[in-house]
């Protein structure tokens, strides 16, 4: 049976101590078995861009800090911990690590910062729903004893909702992941078939729906698909209506039915009610329509379209 824990900080002014305690409580209640022989642990936050944690777009480094402390406490100080992220279409980790405070964090905690777009990268074949995909994956992930996925709880302009499974899409070594967007559901499921997150710690401190909001929630799960099903429910989506989750369920990369939800000190319904709902379909239609109308206007009237608005 998969387990998902939902816990609240019960405050809007999150101190480091509040965050440490919430993360600790969430993992404790998950009752995850940290093997004593763990040597290489990789933590994958969501650093999709340069917008800092206060925007609700990227993982709060304080959550990662709490996870590092927890792992050391359980496994010992000798365990090798790396915080890892790959370059993206519009983001280079050499800047995002600095801009988002991960340089400082990792220096202070004496853990490695790894750019998954550099080093030993292996092309891995994976079959998703009869389609064969080849994805470049860093050996750091393939050789890890434990992968801790630390995604954000947030909506997404392109795919509606993003949490654990989508965060691993960011771990693909190829920087220009924009090129995968035509087959994004298959690629998300594919990367999660290759690299399984053993634990997911969801940063729901500041979430991003139709606007950023201090929700003050931490989730922990031992199954990324089960965790995502709860996460997207909080965001107001029907999990089966999210194409990549539907595909992931069909490909049986995790549990969707046999799930125990542990509501630690807060009810799922309360968190769901508090989440700033976001009408993804209206947003997508509206943005696509605006860009199409702009191009039509430019062609008919002969006006200039600023290059940064060109697709």
């Amino acid at each position: 049976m998969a387990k998902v824990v939902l816990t609240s900080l019960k405050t809007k002014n999150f101190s480091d101590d509040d965050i440490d305690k919430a993360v600790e409580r969430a993992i404790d209640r998950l009752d995850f078995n940290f093997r004593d022989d763990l040597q290489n642990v990789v933590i994958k936050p969501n650093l999709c861009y340069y917008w800092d944690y206060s925007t609700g777009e990227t993982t709060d480094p304080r959550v990662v800090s709490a996870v590092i402390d927890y792992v050391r406490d359980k496994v010992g100080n000798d365990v090798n911990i790396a915080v890892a992220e790959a370059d993206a279409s519009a983001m280079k980790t050499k800047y995002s690590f600095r801009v988002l405070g991960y340089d400082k964090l990792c220096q202070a905690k004496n853990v490695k910062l790894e750019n998954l777009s550099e080093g030993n990268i292996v092309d891995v074949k994976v079959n998703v729903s009869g389609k064969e995909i080849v994805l470049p994956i860093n050996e750091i992930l393939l050789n890890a004893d434990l992968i801790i996925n630390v995604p954000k709880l947030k909506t997404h302009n392109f795919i509606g909702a993003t949490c654990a499974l989508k965060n691993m899409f960011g771990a693909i070594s190829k920087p220009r992941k924009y090129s995968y967007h035509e087959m994004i559901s298959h690629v998300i499921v594919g990367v999660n078939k290759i690299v399984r997150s053993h634990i997911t710690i969801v940063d729901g401190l500041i979430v991003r729906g139709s606007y950023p909001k201090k929700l003050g929630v931490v989730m922990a799960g031992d199954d990324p698909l089960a965790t995502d099903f709860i996460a997207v429910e909080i965001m107001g989506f029907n999990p089966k209506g999210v194409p990549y989750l539907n595909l992931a369920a069909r490909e049986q990369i995790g549990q969707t039915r046999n799930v125990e939800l542990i509501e630690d000190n807060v009810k799922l319904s309360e968190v769901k009610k508090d989440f700033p709902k976001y009408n993804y379909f209206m947003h997508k239609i509206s943005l696509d329509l605006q860009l199409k109308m702009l191009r039509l206007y430019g062609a008919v009237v002969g006006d200039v379209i600023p290059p940064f608005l060109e697709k």
Partner: protein
Amino acid sequence: MLKVGVIGLGNMGKLHLLNALRIKEINVVAVADKSEKNRKSVEKYHIKTYDDYSKLIDAEKLDAVIISLPNFLKKESVVYAAENKLDIFLDKPLARNFPEAQEIVQEVEKENVRLMVGVNYRYFPSVQKLKNNLDDGRIGDAVIATSELILNGPLSHSVVPTPVPEWWLNKEMAGGGVLLDLGYHLIDILSWMFGDLEVAYSNLGYRLNLSVEDAGTVMLESKNHGTRCIVNVGWFSKSIFPDFNFRINIHGTVGYDSTDRYAPRDLRVHAVKEGTLNFFRRILKRKMHYLSYTYYYSSFYQVLELFFDTLNKGAEPPISLEEQLDVIRIIDFVYRQNGVK
């Protein structure tokens, strides 16, 4: 008809090219950019392309160039164009620092060519209206002026995500951070409105841990008018087009006025209105108001058109080099005051 070349085809260079192609009194004959991808992107306009600006200047008989290159390439390109007796439209900032700006001005004066820095913010309709009200005495004597421009700077991305050009975040190549990028516009406007500014206080912020500043507050005093001006700039905000966090507020002895009073409240509604008007202008063969649907970007067209208009008339550009030199002097002072090397 003036023969013009465009140097640099990044986002700004492409925008200048698109605008220049719509200015009737000029003929854009060629463009130059090191990037093959950028050169290919303008093939549809059937203009000659060069992979080096010196080749463009050597091969074509030009009257003027539009230079839209990264800051570290400005001096050498301006000097080369000036030595070839070309008039120059240059993206802001004039240079990376005051000594470099002085060298540029000396070279331009020595070669007796005209150079205008495209400080387009002066041409926002809301700024023009505020300046007119100030000049007409409707605000009275300006005692306090505050200005704000908080965006996400080089960290923004367009519809198709592209990585941040590295030079933006390199102190040596860029010359500075948000103060040189956005502060340049605000200091230029305040200087234009109140003249002879001196730095009374300044502070720079580094929230993003970059090698250049991402926030800045500068207090300036006008020797002529006694106006105290405050400049607040930042790169730290996740604002995405069409959001535009810009304003100038003036508190005078008669009353208060602000650019916020004249800028459209809803830029989408404004876009529909202006787009419709332009549609009818096209049908009725009236003068088009290019980019007016974006409100702020129309200033890029206006400032470029103004430059070529003055060249055609044999007049001096309306934005003087002395003013631009003064903006760089102020910025240089702030950097030194804050121990930036």
